[in-house]
């Protein structure tokens, strides 16, 4: 097993598996958040947030998710460092734009952007709900069900926060354009036919997820103006 994880494909295998896990997480996360759009009273979203915060299964998945994130990052660093060392002397001139996508060549940088955004995002919401608490969460809380909706919608009334979240969604989107098919390819789950199909499915997934995450703050911001 250690042999396997020391090999280039083994390490990539781990990137792919954790990637799949994160891809699934993003979709669930978006589904829950989209409730903000569909219920102005905030009741649906609060219920979902409450469920996510208290359900035992989610409680088990949460640390697994954190480990998945950390492994994905650690292995990205290891792989990237090895790759930089694999070409000790670089080219004077190298044209790669014709043969590969920009995102595929910049996954590490995009990953850093997503990570920075993630840290901000966690401190904005998850941290307050889970650990520190916040006065907005108490306001209009029903029993032990916090008013997460109020916290989120109040927060998104600041225009610069909305812009920050749009940038986060764009970085995530570019990361995903390459990540989706790549995760399949690494597990060997691709061939000439499926490559095109997976590319299309990946693009749809990316548009839905990145678009979805961008639309929520924009929607809340606009709704607060009218």
């Amino acid at each position, binding site marked *: 097993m250690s042999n396997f994880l020391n090999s280039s*494909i083994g390490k*990539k295998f781990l990137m792919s598996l954790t990637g799949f896990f994160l891809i699934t997480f993003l979709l669930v996360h978006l589904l829950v958040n989209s409730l903000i759009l569909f219920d102005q009273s905030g009741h649906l979203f609060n219920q979902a947030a409450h469920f996510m915060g208290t359900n035992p299964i989610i409680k088990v998945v949460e640390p697994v998710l954190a480990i998945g994130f950390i492994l994905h990052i650690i292995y990205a660093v290891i792989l990237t460092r090895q790759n930089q060392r694999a070409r000790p002397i670089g080219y004077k*001139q190298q*044209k790669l734009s014709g*043969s590969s996508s920009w995102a595929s060549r910049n996954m590490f940088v995009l990953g850093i952007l997503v990570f920075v955004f993630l840290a901000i995002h966690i401190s904005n919401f998850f941290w307050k709900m889970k650990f520190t608490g916040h006065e907005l969460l108490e306001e209009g809380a029903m029993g032990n069900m916090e008013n997460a909706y109020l916290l989120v919608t109040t927060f998104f009334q600041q225009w610069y926060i909305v812009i920050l979240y749009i940038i986060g969604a764009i970085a995530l989107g570019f990361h995903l354009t390459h990540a989706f098919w*790549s995760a399949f390819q690494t597990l060997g789950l691709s061939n000439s036919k499926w490559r095109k199909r997976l590319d299309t499915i990946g693009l749809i997934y990316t548009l839905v997820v990145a678009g979805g995450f961008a639309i929520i703050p924009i929607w809340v911001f606009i709704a607060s103006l009218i």
Partner: protein
Amino acid sequence: MDLTLKVWRQENRKAKGRFETYAIKNISPDSSFLEMLDVLNEQLIREGQEPVVFDHDCREGICGTCGLFINGRAHGPDEDITTCQLHMRKFKDGDTIVVEPWRAGGFPVIKDLMVDRTAFDKILQAGGFISINTGSAPDGNASLVAKEKADEAMDAAACIGCGACVATCKNSSAMLFVASKVSQLAVLPQGKTEAVRRAKAMVAKMDELGFGNCTNTGACEVECPKNVSLAHIARLNREFLAANLKP
């Protein structure tokens, strides 16, 4: 055509190289890129200078010996060709052309534009063969191979080991080469016997020799003169995972 060439010159493996600029005149647009370098070398010899060393053999795109990084691209500005198949009509009169050797830790420069690709031989020696005796050419239809499988094996076997995949890859990964050498055997009955050992041994060798980790950018497939598909890399991944799942 009159051209300016910026060519990488390096005395030997240890020496620090540099770019030299040469002016070259009256090149026919119908000549090949290597013929243009021949003209340059004749000119250099006449001037009492050392000719530029570059690898070449068949000069018809079948041996894989030639390989130059020209104006930022492996095998230069044309599709699905080796360097020897590149023609000067792909350039314009007055152009400046930058000529570099393959750059990768696994391919050290021997002299000027010539690199050492022994690493590929070592990878092949690690497992790119079959050791059962297949005898002489079998009778037709004696061992049945589906047409699609035969085609796939043939497409993979088209790899000439030129190294453009490594040269163009931002990670200097040799995955396309290794994938083609695994694939050409993996889909045929004769190659099944050693499939497990092969995938493990070749990937281990590839890693050991300092090639980078594939990140699926797909640049190799585009620059490969023989159009070896990324689908073969997916198969290599499958073979490798399967090999590691077996006890």
